């Protein structure tokens, strides 16, 4: 297969899924089969693509000039290939899960739901494979707009309000700040290509570079850096599969992926470490990590707590990128993968609990682990991965980030990471433990199942797989590191 066709196929397959879903509107089984087949197909394509990238092949697809010297360009590099692999792989599991969840809850407008999901994946693939900043920006917005109907899915006042905040924050930051940064880069450099070593290297002074960096960091609202993080908790009104794949993986990871990609290919790590703005973003990132964790502690609603946990964990990636050295950036990249696997598990667990019992508050889940042992065990595993306990994937990311902090001579970052770990323990572990440990007799009434048989098989299976995935990632980390090594250069 020629590289052009491969790239085009990866973009088209999610759209084809959307089209097929629309056509088979009235045949739910066929409709869901289309989504599954498309997801598997996409994953296979992404795997092929990743292997070819790993082999050092140049995969490129570029459109003719559309105006002003801007082009749509797709160019694969390891970072993007990894993101595409994660998003497409988890799409398969999430589709299985969606079927169980949406049917289990008898949700309305399921066709619209699957269509928008396809378009969102199209956006995510575009972001992953983008070869210049313009393409990345365009697909970033596709992702924003296509997920708006998903957040507003329920259609009541609360959902509309959450979706409005979601859209306004993401569109507002991207048009108000990110676009400015993109065009400014365009004016400075004359093009927007992602260049190894940094497009802006040698082209900006420290002040302007710092301003640009701040515009990028806050303009990418999807990275949820405070104070632009509040859209994420508000987006939790969406059905749980959306929260799981989009607001733990595709959308938010597209945000931090953008930050990482801009750091590596637009600024370049050398320039980045010399900019005064880097220190500011680093501080904001650390602040976000700690404060979001503290807020998470106060939330009793499970999804809200997970959302704040995501806000906090996303800033790991930003912080890693701002450390501007090999270990930091590769820790950031690992964090994208590790956190995706663990957080999607947590969200799927939350959804499974909701389908089975209609419970959303943590305080109502005491002793529930007895009735849903698999779900809560997986929850525990994923929690431990986020905390960073070996042998689970999350430990590597934290290790690399700490290494990067020491290399960059920023010891306070190490302390922030340790504090965050302790906070993770405080807000995540009690959930699973209280559910699994036997409740005191007579004091608590364990919630019953709303539906006979508990959570549907289709919701439990995917989350079990992703929980196992957390172990696999721990042992497979070398594969990922080797794959990513061309991006960040050799270790000092």
């Amino acid at each position, binding site marked *: 297969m020629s590289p052009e066709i491969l790239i085009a196929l990866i973009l088209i397959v999610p759209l084809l899924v959307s089209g097929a879903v629309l056509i088979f509107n009235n045949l739910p089984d066929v409709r869901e089969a289309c989504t599954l087949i498309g997801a598997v197909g996409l994953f296979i394509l992404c795997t092929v693509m990743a292997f070819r990238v790993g082999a050092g092949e140049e995969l490129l697809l570029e459109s003719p000039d559309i105006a002003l010297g801007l082009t749509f360009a797709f160019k694969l590099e390891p970072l993007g290939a990894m993101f595409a692999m994660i998003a497409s792989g988890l799409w398969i599991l999430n589709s299985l899960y969606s079927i169980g969840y949406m049917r289990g809850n008898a949700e309305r407008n399921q066709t619209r739901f699957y269509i928008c999901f396809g378009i969102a994946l199209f956006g995510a693939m575009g972001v992953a494979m983008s070869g210049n900043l313009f393409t990345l920006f365009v697909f970033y917005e596709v992702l924003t707009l296509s997920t708006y109907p998903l957040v507003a899915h329920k259609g009541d006042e609360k959902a509309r309000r959450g979706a409005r905040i979601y859209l306004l924050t993401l569109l*507002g930051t991207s048009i108000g700040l990110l676009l400015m940064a993109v*065009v*400014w880069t365009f004016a400075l450099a004359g093009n927007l290509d992602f260049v190894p070593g940094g497009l802006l290297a040698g082209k900006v002074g420290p002040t302007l570079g710092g301003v640009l960096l701040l515009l990028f960091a806050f303009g990418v609202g999807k990275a949820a850096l405070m104070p632009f993080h509040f859209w994420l908790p508000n987006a939790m009104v969406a059905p749980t599969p959306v929260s799981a794949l989009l607001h733990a993986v595709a959308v938010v990871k597209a945000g931090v992926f953008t930050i990482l990609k801009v750091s590596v290919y637009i600024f370049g790590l050398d320039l980045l470490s010399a900019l005064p703005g880097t220190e500011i973003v680093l501080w904001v990132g650390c602040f976000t990590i700690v404060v979001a964790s503290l807020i998470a502690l106060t939330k009793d609603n499970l999804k809200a707590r997970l959302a704040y946990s995501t806000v906090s964990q996303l800033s790991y990636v930003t912080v890693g990128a701002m450390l501007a050295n090999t270990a930091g950036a590769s820790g950031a990249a690992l964090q994208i993968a590790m956190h995706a696997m663990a957080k999607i598990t947590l969200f799927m667990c939350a959804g499974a609990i909701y389908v089975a019992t209609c419970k959303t508050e943590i305080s109502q889940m005491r002793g529930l682990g007895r009735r849903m042992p698999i779900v809560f065990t997986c929850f525990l595993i994923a929690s431990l991965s986020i905390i960073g306990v070996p042998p689970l994937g999350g430990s590597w990311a934290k290790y690399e980030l700490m290494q990067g902090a020491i290399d960059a001579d920023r010891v306070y970052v190490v302390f922030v990471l340790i504090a965050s770990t302790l906070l993770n323990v405080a807000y995540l572990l009690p959930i699973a433990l209280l559910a699994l440990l036997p409740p005191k007799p007579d004091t608590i009434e364990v919630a019953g199942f709303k539906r006979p048989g508990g959570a549907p098989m289709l919701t439990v299976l995917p989350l079990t797989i992703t929980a196992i995935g957390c172990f696999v990632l721990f042992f497979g980390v070398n594969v990922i590191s080797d794959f990513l090594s061309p991006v960040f250069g050799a270790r000092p």
Partner: protein
Amino acid sequence: MPFDLVSLLPDGFVRHLPVLLVIVPLLLAPVCAAIPSWRATWAIALGGIVFSLICALGLLQQVMETGRISYALGGWAPPLGIEFAVDMLNAPILLLVSAIGVLATIFALPTIVKDVNKEKRALFFAAYLMCFAGLLGVAVTADAFNLFVFLEVSSISTYVLVAIGGSRDRRAFVAGFNYLIMGSIGATFYVIGIGFLYAATGTLNMADIAARIPEVADSKTIHAGFAFIVVGLGLKAAMFPLHQWLPNAYAYAPNFVTVFLSATATKVAFYALIRLLFSVFSPELSFQEIIFTWVLAPLAAIAAIACSFQAIFQTDIKRMLAYSSVAQVGYMLLGLSLASADGVSASLFHLINHAMMKGALFMAVSGVVLSLGSSQLRDFAGIARKAPWTATALGIAALSLVGVPLTAGFLSKVALFKAALVQDWWWVVVVLGISSVLAVLYVGRLLETVFFKTPGPAQLQVKEAPLMVLIPLWVLALACIYYGLDASFITTLTDGAASVAFSGGQP
């Protein structure tokens, strides 16, 4: 040009294209007034405008191949006689006006039935043709005084068109009267300005004035003339703070008139401003540079923010869109006040895109108003369920207005950003950024109401807009997407236009 139109036309015809373009619709106007059947007048009007479109296409092709075309009216050679001239600066405007004219005329047939009393419809089309011919005349003429004449031809007929809305909503009378007063003041200012120029240079031909201005540039006469012309044309172009006539005129005029005016009238006035400022005066003149930097640019910035802000609080969709138009004129003026080729090109790029998206927006809103009977925002709740096609086109155009990627509005906004940054006017980018965020707010309010609110009983009566509305609407909506994916055609035109503007309009 992708096709060769000129070779298909007879030679004698091609030679007279510049004048035929204007004169045919102008002469058809009295014919319309004399015919009793309004459907026949509609057909005549459509025929005349399609004819103008063909002329405009032919002219564009000629200009792209051979450069500036000069046409001496009645055989009297310029500078004494009146000259019509077509170059890369006005050929795209001619094409824009006549293309929008064709779409708007198609759109007129179903909407006019609701908006205008039967006995007035034939006269209505007569006034429309006058207005159309006047706008083309403004764009095509190379004589400063003749421009005033055409400006008045189009304006006076516009007052009529707005006031005809009075049979449906009596506020249209007041709006039309307001517009009449303001418009006449604008025209008077313009003609006074031309008077000053004539006094100082002794000629009315634009190229001729341009050649003579440098000698007398520092005289008070020229300064006064410049000020009067900018205010006069600025008023017609709805330049902040001279825009007060616009929101009411747009809100209460018949639907068709709003569509047509929003996409053409202010655009042509804006073109005239560019022509006068760049081809007659020149940005190199020291006083003009000061005016650009310290008067036009700040006013434009205020417009872009203040009027976007006002748009957020409108309860009537048409008024909301009208305020948004004033804000968008601010964008174009910002591009203009950069006084660079990039700036003018970006400004024209945005002008063309704005004509497409505002035209589409007003068409979509009018299409719903036909069956709903109200243009209040709250009455539009959930109409997407009953009129999905209309609502989708509305959505596309609205996204383009915000400047969402993959739509035309995005590219022209990027072009404006870039033109500003190249000369380090970063505050322009900040202003446009803030204004875009405000646009997200008011457009978001509209889209949320249309797509996500629960329709009430009145909304369930809404029907899909008639086919004659949907066709032009979707042509524009698809253009918004097409030119968001490949804008090379428009940028070729606007880059050509900008280089003409900066060559001082000389052949």
